[in-house]
């Protein structure tokens, strides 16, 4: 369990708990969070993940590198897309 962490991912405002592997890239939690909240209509690349301060997080970075405390809340929202 030492290489696992529990994160709370808030998907469009609705929280869900995700168990994440510290050695996996951050993008690995997106699919789980979307599946658990039944958000299956848009591909993963159409979502963006932010920390509590609103900063966009680099999805290619290992989860362990962020130093998240347990139960950290991350915010996953649909990108704006291209309007017109």
């Amino acid at each position: 369990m030492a290489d696992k962490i529990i994160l709370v991912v808030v998907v469009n405002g609705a929280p869900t708990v995700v168990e994440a592997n510290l050695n996996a890239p951050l993008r690995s939690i997106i699919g789980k969070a979307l599946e658990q909240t039944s958000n299956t209509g848009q591909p993963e690349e159409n979502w963006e993940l932010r920390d509590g301060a609103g900063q966009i997080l680099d999805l290619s970075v290992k989860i362990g590198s962020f130093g998240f405390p347990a139960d950290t809340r991350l915010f996953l929202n649909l990108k704006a897309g291209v309007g017109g």
Partner: protein
Amino acid sequence: MADAPAATPAEPQYVDPDVSRRKFDREIADYRALERDYQQRGWFLVEANYPTVVVLLAAPHVSPSPVVTGVLFDYTNYDAQPPSVRLVNPFTREPYQANQLPTTLNRGIPHSMPGAPDGMQMLVQQPLMQWYAPTDIPFLCLAGVREYHNHPGHSGDSWELHRPTGAGALVRLLEVIHTYGVAPLAGWKVNFNPQVMFGWTEPPT
């Protein structure tokens, strides 16, 4: 304080009101559960009476911190219909006209430059707030917003395509408005307009 004005001309409630209200209540409950997090980002939910939500967006990273805009949501017929979204004066709650907007929610769209070396791109500003005349009430040109899907130019991008993704969720819409309308604020800018003119002595008698 008087009730908030309707976000768009009143629309009849044709969805079972209990269904829309339950979905509205879930949006508000989700928001309230994390309200402290949102307040730290400068979001203040000041009214939530079905079908209306009013949120004020401040900029805590700017000192002194301004209230940048109010946002008025109307969740009538949700989620058979997406919510109406208007930027409003935070004090009067009147929707801003285009020429009054404190922010037009500009986003940078990368465009390739003709004749430029490979990979060289320029950022073109595209406002998410759209209008025709300066006195129009502008609309948020974004999938998940009623005014966007009702616009004849977007008839090919139906709400039904976005409904299952939570595109009309309160927090998601606030995130977009915050990202393009509040987060880019770098600080206060003061403009001085010096004028040069003749300086006169007392007039001779």
